């Protein structure tokens, strides 16, 4: 037994033991995850030195290189962290033993998927993974929340259909070339290669959540609890989907041989960035907002990988890692908030920062990272993607300004929506019922804090740690330039700036904020009416004091550029949300309606009268005779 089998089998066995033995349940699950992580580290360390392949029973063929080694490491890290989190978080759920068992299985099978060394192994693991994910989603189907069944059906049908296409693509390859391993660099110039590439990318897109196959993530976010969201759409599926996309784009095939397919990826990436972030902007529910951002961030990865420029690809890969880190952190912290408040509507929350400092800090770091604020990791990977896009002009691809624009705009809007979110959850007025809320306990805040720390670390020490250590070695290119951004230097400058600011703050007008009662028309304003929640952040922009000064000469907000912009954006987001989702839903319902009617009509053929049957049968033979003899 080598580490390969143990990595997968041990969690399964230990999970099963935990499933059976109730009084040692958590210990067994924890042990399973730990062992999984241990073997993942071992395989990762081996993969730094040599590529290893291993055949088991002549069926499963595992192989690990530098790329899969590092993805494997992070999958099993996330499994461990989120398992720790959910053991506490889901303590009072009814069927938690099944949940944890599925969870561990998903972790183990996810590792297997990454390690798959040929097409058949990949098909097997990918299929098992889909079944497990459907099990874990189905587990929440009848949760107390409404729409659970619809969400389950929608996500499983999208994932199932796209997985079907993916396996079809792989099968096409299998039949054309035999059981391939994944490092052949086939040129994308004949029909079979192109067709199977497109089919496989569809599977990757649905897993990772790129538009137009994204809609299962926001839907499932309504019912699934925070750790599930943090694990499946935010980290595992990102890692797997983008890993597979990268794997087929530059290992199995060579994307640089087909100009059109590159643009296909980049266009999908750019649309994903913009459309999803626009939808996120108007969400009023924490989980749903986060899930739209999950979708939006995929765009950067697809865009980066689609550029075909080494630094862009490295950026995409790095962004995948970063996104998994900060997005699971965001989901986890949102879960921590929900854990006490039992509330996910933005307007009902507020002012929780003093109560939950660690949660707030983790959330803030991740939020800044996702918005691409230097020196955090999100900025650096986006920066690499931008550079990749800019280099496109050297290849004569003159669509690059569009891609660049959408990427940057997406980043700005992300910042905007996270300002709103941070404000409305942690800052602003605190509703009365939340005053007694305390910080969550260690096993809840530790995973998110660790992830936030990782974000910070990967941002500041980007070049020595993740880039040189993980990203560049795992790509099949030699990359010389790092761009002209020096994160460490920048961090030092920023810290200096902050210190200067703090000094100024100290020496400046240090006043204690006074709380005063507010009167309107002589009446004392009630506590509730004073509450200013973040969900109206962008509608009354014109009333914000800063803008009022800036555009005093204009009429009351009508000259307000931001106002127009918001209106346009909301228009767009409404368009995407209402029209496209509406159309998709309409099609879904129409198909259901049509099949109802059609099936009802066809049922009438079976009239119950024998003579009718015989009559039809004799007509049948006459037709057969006519066709065959004449």
């Amino acid at each position, binding site marked *: 037994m080598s580490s390969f089998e143990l990595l997968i089998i041990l969690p399964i066995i230990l999970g099963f033991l935990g499933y059976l033995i109730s009084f040692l349940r958590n210990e067994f699950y924890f042990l399973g995850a730990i062992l999984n992580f241990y073997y993942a580290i071992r395989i990762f360390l081996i993969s730094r030195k040599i590529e290893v392949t291993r055949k088991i029973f002549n069926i499963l063929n595992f192989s690990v290189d530098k790329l899969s080694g590092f993805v494997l490491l992070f999958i099993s890290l996330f499994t461990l962290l989120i398992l720790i989190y959910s053991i506490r978080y889901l303590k009072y759920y009814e069927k938690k033993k099944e949940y944890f068992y599925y969870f561990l299985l998903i972790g183990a099978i996810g590792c297997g998927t990454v390690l798959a060394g040929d097409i058949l192994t990949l098909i097997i693991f990918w299929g098992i993974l889909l079944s497990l994910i459907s099990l874990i989603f189905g587990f929440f189907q009848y949760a107390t929340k409404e729409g659970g069944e619809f969400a389950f059906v929608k996500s499983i049908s999208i994932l199932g259909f796209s997985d079907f296409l993916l396996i079809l693509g792989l099968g096409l390859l299998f039949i054309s070339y035999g059981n391939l391993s994944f490092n052949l660099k086939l040129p994308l110039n004949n029909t079979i290669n192109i067709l199977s590439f497109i089919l496989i990318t569809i599977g990757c897109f649905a897993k990772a959540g790129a538009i137009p196959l994204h809609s299962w993530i926001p839907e499932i976010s309504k019912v699934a609890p925070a750790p599930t969201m943090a694990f499946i759409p935010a980290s595992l599926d990102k890692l797997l989907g983008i890993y597979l996309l990268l794997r087929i784009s530059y290992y199995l095939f060579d994307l640089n041989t087909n100009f059109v397919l590159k643009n296909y990826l980049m266009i999908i990436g750019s649309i994903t960035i913009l459309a999803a972030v626009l939808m996120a902007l108007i969400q009023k529910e924490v989980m749903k907002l986060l899930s739209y951002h999950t979708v939006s961030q995929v765009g950067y990865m697809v865009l980066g990988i689609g550029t075909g420029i080494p630094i862009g690809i490295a950026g995409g890969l790095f962004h995948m890692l970063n996104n998994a880190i900060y997005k699971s952190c965001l989901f986890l912290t949102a879960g921590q908030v929900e854990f006490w408040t039992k509330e996910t509507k933005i307007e009902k929350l507020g002012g929780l920062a003093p109560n939950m400092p660690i949660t707030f800090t983790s959330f803030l770091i991740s939020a800044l990272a996702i918005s691409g604020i230097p020196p955090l990791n999100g900025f650096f990977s986006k920066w690499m993607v931008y550079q990749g896009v800019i280099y496109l002009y050297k290849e004569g691809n003159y669509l690059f300004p569009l891609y660049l624009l959408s990427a940057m705009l997406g980043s700005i809007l992300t910042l905007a929506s996270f300002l709103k979110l941070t404000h409305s959850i942690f800052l602003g007025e605190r509703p009365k019922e939340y005053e007694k809320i305390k910080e969550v306990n260690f096993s809840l805040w530790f995973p998110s804090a660790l992830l936030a720390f990782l974000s910070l670390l990967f941002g500041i020490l980007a070049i020595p740690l993740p880039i040189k250590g993980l990203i560049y070695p795992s790509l099949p290119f030699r990359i010389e330039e790092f761009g002209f951004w020096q994160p460490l230097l920048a961090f030092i400058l920023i810290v200096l700036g902050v210190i200067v600011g703090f000094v100024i703050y100290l020496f400046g007008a240090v006043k204690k904020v006074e709380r005063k009662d507010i009167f309107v028309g002589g009446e004392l304003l009630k506590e509730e009416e004073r509450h200013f929640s973040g969900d109206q952040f962008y509608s009354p922009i014109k009333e914000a004091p800063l803008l009022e000064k800036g555009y005093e000469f204009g009429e009351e907000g009508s000259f307000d550029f931001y106002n127009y912009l918001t209106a346009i954006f909301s228009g767009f987001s409404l368009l995407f949300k209402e029209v496209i989702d509406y159309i998709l839903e309409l099609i879904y319902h129409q198909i259901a309606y049509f099949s109802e009617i059609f099936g009802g009509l066809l*049922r*009438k053929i*079976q*009239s*119950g*009268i*024998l*003579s009718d049957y*015989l*009559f039809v049968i*004799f007509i049948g033979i006459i037709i057969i005779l006519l066709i065959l003899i004449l």
Partner: protein
Amino acid sequence: MLPYLGCIILFLIGIYAILTKRNLIKIAIGFCLLEYSVNLFFAFIGYKKDALAPIYANLSQARNFVDPIPQALVLTAIVIGLGTTALLLSVALRIYEKYKTFDIKEIKRLKE
């Protein structure tokens, strides 16, 4: 050619009975007619003009036998037909017991 024509006529009568009659027993009878016509046809196939019965008496006459195989086969087919007809009739009688009718158009609890 005439015997074959007879077979075909019998066959058509059988089809007519099955398709148009409403009584279960009549349908069974029509079915028997179909079966007889096929058996008859099979039996005719083995027939040769002026040939002897296929009994192995002495070798000098061995040249002009009727083909014995169709007869054996028809016998088997008749046995099978016997089984089906018996089953068909007993089911028809049980149906009458339960439904109190032999009319096939009344017997339509299973539909759609």
